[in-house]
């Protein structure tokens, strides 16, 4: 069997990346906008007075947020300082880093809509489950 040449492989890889370029640029532009539109104070005000559903709210807010994990740590730290429950903060942080609503189009294009939907949905549900587990474990340790 004739093996592919390096040149052919490089061209093929280049084409694959080029096809994803408009979606990648668009996604980064959207993320940049999201980071600047949603202020940190918004998150803090949203969690107040929602003790029962705080984990769910934490997951929801984390899912639609964009930015580096560092931002979620800083906001999470601020939320804890404000007296927001560890469960809510954990759900918020975990969904922030595992659910990608803004990246959905580009992920769906590369890996398929069904997989992307399932992955994001399960990541959302798992962020709440993980929050419960973490609180249980930490309470048991103490």
């Amino acid at each position, binding site marked *: 069997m004739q093996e592919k040449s390096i040149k052919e492989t490089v061209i093929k890889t280049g084409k694959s*990346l080029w096809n994803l370029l408009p*979606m990648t640029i668009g996604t980064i532009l959207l993320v940049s906008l999201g980071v600047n539109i949603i202020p940190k104070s918004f998150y803090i005000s949203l969690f107040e007075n929602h003790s029962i559903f705080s984990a769910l709210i934490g997951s929801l807010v984390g899912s639609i947020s964009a930015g580096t*994990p560092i931002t979620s740590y800083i906001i999470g*730290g601020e939320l804890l300082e404000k007296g927001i429950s560890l469960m809510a903060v954990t759900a918020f942080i975990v969904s922030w880093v595992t659910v*990608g609503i803004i990246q959905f189009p580009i992920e769906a294009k*590369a890996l398929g809509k069904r*997989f992307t939907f399932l992955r994001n949905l399960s990541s959302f549900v*798992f962020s709440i489950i993980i929050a419960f587990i*973490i609180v249980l474990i*930490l309470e048991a340790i103490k």
Partner: protein
Amino acid sequence: MKKQKSNSWIFLSIVILIYILIFVSKRELFSSSINFFIKVILDIIPVFIFVFILMTFTNYYITPKFVEKHFKERGIKKWFFAIIGGILSTGPIYLWYPFLSELKKKGLNYGIISCFLYNRAIMIPLLPIAIFYFGVEYVLTLSIVMIFMSVIQGKLINRIIKND
């Protein structure tokens, strides 16, 4: 395929249109967003080059037979590979999609891909910052639970989606 390509360009055009509207109405927001965008682009260029090299390597050396041999075998080996790969991978998540898409075409199952993506949330270089805010005990517990859940998610996705 052509339709997908044109959809991508339509998506980018819409986002650019939003930016034009913001430029007209909220100049400050436009500037800060563009500055953030440029910063991200500059940050990801080295990662993009790394991804390109990795994809070329994958395209050249990793044939479906190779994948079948190393990733399709039963046992914890393939899950271990996905976990370590996810944790050690760097750069924005969307830069890894083409690479994973290539691996998918070569026979990698969706469960392993989701496990890889989930473990990307555990970023070793950022752990000191997380520890600073939440403590060692919390960060270690969270990381271990997330690794465990990534495998459960992968298994779940494999059950729901029957791989081609």
